[in-house]
């Protein structure tokens, strides 16, 4: 009985962890590469949730896409949010980051950037509130209430249940993360993004348009957050202020994984998912987020370079 419970919790942790992992990868692109503390990341995720909901409900004909509609909708939301993120950085955020701010001292420029993303977050949250109301909504899919049953071999009565929607989500998240790692590691554009992150000045001397590289990184980070949100909305209801709960999870995962490391961020998010779910075995369920915060603060204090990262080059 206990084994069954632990396994079931582990499965829940892994499936949540995959989504958190993808969310963290999105933030790592922005926070890790550009060193922008983006407060609005959770709200960009919220945008993805509404967008996917809208697309799945009104755009995709269910006769063609059937049960796949919610997942396709999440993926379609990605490119739209890429454009949004690219423009957001180009028109607003980049005015307060590194390259264009020379007159301000570093501390002041830092504060300006921080407060700007806070402003964007407030506008997105409350804009959504005004336009869409505050009732939580989610995509209705039969997949989110059915499960595959995996019998446990040691007796005939025990089994672990895999929620279908969550399992499909987890697979998509792993595939997307893997694809993104490949892109960052091996593609020419991915390498340029890394070069621009490691040493912007030298990247300029190579002829890399560093400002554009930052727009792309921000766009990608936004798209990833949006897709993860779109997948999440299949079983987690969206309301305008949903992002707040996730921002802390994302930062916790990124710091855990080591700032600047996209693969580390995935494992950081995964760890957060596992801690959150496994903590319910020993703690009241209301305190599962407290467990995350405790882990987060402990990691910051004991090992700020993260659990999975190399030694951070600048602390």
């Amino acid at each position, binding site marked *: 009985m206990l084994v069954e419970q632990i396994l079931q919790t582990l499965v829940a942790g892994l499936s949540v962890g995959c989504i958190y992992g993808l969310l963290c990868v999105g933030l790592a692109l922005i926070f890790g590469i550009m060193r922008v503390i983006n407060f609005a990341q959770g709200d960009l995720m919220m945008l993805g949730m509404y967008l996917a909901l809208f697309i799945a409900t009104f755009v995709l004909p269910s006769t063609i896409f059937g049960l796949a509609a919610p997942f396709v909708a999440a993926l379609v939301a990605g490119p739209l949010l890429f454009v949004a993120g690219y423009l957001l950085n180009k028109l607003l955020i980049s005015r307060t980051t590194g390259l264009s701010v020379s007159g301000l001292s570093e*501390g002041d420029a*830092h504060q300006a950037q921080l*407060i700007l993303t806070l402003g964007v977050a*407030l506008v997105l*949250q409350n804009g959504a509130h005004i336009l869409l109301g505050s009732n939580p909504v989610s995509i209705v899919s039969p997949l989110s209430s059915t499960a595959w049953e995996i019998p446990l071999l040691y007796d005939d009565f025990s089994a672990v249940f895999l929620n279908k929607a969550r399992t499909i989500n987890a697979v998509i998240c792993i595939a997307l993360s893997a694809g993104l790692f490949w892109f960052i590691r091996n593609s020419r554009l991915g390498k340029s993004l890394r070069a621009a992150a490691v040493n912007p000045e030298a990247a300029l001397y190579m002829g890399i348009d560093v400002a554009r590289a930052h727009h792309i990184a921000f766009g990608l980070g936004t798209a990833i957050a949006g897709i993860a949100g779109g997948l999440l909305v299949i079983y987690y209801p969206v309301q305008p202020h949903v992002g707040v709960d996730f*921002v802390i999870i994302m930062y916790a995962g990124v710091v855990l994984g080591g700032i600047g490391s996209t693969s580390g961020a995935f494992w950081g998010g995964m760890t957060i998912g596992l801690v959150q779910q496994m903590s319910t075995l020993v703690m009241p369920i209301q*305190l599962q987020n407290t467990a995350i*915060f405790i882990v987060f603060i402990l990691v910051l204090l004991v090992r700020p370079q993260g659990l999975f990262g190399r030694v951070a080059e600048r602390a």
Partner: protein
Amino acid sequence: MQDNRARLKTLLIVAAVFAAWLGVGLVVTNSYYRLVLTLVPIWAVLAISWNLLSGYSGLVSFGHAAFFGLGAFTLGLSIKFLDLTPWFGIPLATLVGAVAGAAIGYPSFRLRGTYFALSMLAYPLAFIAVFEWMGLQELAIPMKRDAPLWYAQFPDFRAYLVMALALLAVATVISLRVEGSRFGLSLLAIKQNELAAEAAGIDTFRWKMRAMVLSAALAATAGALYTMVVLVITPASVFGVVVSAQAMVLTLFGGAGTFWGPLIGSAILVPLSEFLNAELGHILPGIQGMVYGIAIIFVVLLAPEGIYWRLRDVLARRAGRRAAEAPIAAAAEPAPAQVADVLRPPIGPVILDVRGVSKTYGGLKAVQQVSFDVREGEIVGIIGPNGAGKTTLFNLLNGVVMPDEGTVTFADTAITGWKPSAICRAGIGRTFQVARAFTRLTVLQNVATGAFVAHADDAQAWAAARTMLDVVGLAGRADVLAGALTSRELRLLELARALAGKPRLLLLDEPLAGLGSTETQEMIALIRSLPARGVTVVIIEHTMHAMVSTVDRFVVLDHGALLTSGSPTEVTRDPRVIEAYLGRKWAGINAAA
């Protein structure tokens, strides 16, 4: 004198605003507007508390709601379960806030910059979960009809307005006392550069802790008052991200690091958003947050440091234009006396003894086995080509970097392994390669940050700062903002600030960088006058030019090791020095020629 008059003027303006606010509050009958008028001072106190920590020290707190909420719940719980009067409950909340500030600050100050900010984000969110788990989803203050005054439950709502304004008055006085004081200036120094502050003798950890405790206590008090006014609180309403955001936004909108910032931000943004919420809230829910968001975006784009600083810059520029038209009398400073050399005291015993210090970074031997000594009253130049390890050596001397091996002895005391602030207080001062003046402060205030370290008494510190301005010839510019100085004046300011700490040994990091030839001569004369004031000098420079006529003795480094040392004439004729500077082949050519 002028300082006091300015302070009086500020007080009068603030008092007038308070009076006007109170007047409006007493007249207004609409109960919603009364609530808003009461909440504005409370949010202003929270913003002031945020400013005291984050605005001055630059350590951004994303989690001030933690303290606000603790204060709010302390008061609520103390009435509901302990039947305690708020007259005790409010001080209790203040105390809880202070303790929480210390408890959170102690571990968190090990973190810097982004990491600190992020860690602060977690605390209030953790509190929400804990309080909800404890079954405190909603806490209402019970009505005490039998003894309303004892429980501070006034039939006339205007009493709360008076209380809120009274708290704001207290916060304002605290804030005003911090601005430009030892406390405020130390925090600003930390904001500018924590390492440099530490090197200037400021015990950064202690000042940060003080700021945190004071700030948290104020925030908790504001929270307690908030509970009394709104009567019902939930964990989300007092610990929520919106509360932390509000503290930040109001301050940053008005201008961080100034007394005026939180007041301006609160006076404009809170009524504006509340008014819109009252008028349009029923058709456009969330309009309040929208206003905050849009206001922030515009401020960042148009006045990224906040409204106060932008206004002040505009006014300063206008004043500057007027001043430019008037003939400048202060420009002709008397050059420091050339007679300084005549007055030089004889060279004394060894004051600094460096024995076999080494420092390795990764595989790079930045400094290896360097030994030399400096005698009291000497002027010694440390020179060497780029990458020779000069700056690392300086960092080893004043404790910014710990040596892997070797010892540093200053005035017969082993100071190896001491903190920079302790070494500074022991009598080793330092200037930095890039002049780090506080552009927003006056010249005098800049120098005072250095003087506070050596003078326990504030009045003495200010007097010492003025004296040092006299010494370097900047007395006429004492009340000018440092941001308006020329590069020559900035160098002099830097020197005055270091001297104000009463060092026995002064480490100068490239004091001549960026100076023209006459300015260089002036600076050299000044440096040569220092031994007569009881200051021994060690200078780093890579241009040897000006140095040969400045120093008594050179210590030459190359590839992290001591190459040679000796008088300027000896050193410049030394083939090894020529090789290090001009290249091996050059030495060969000249030897052959």
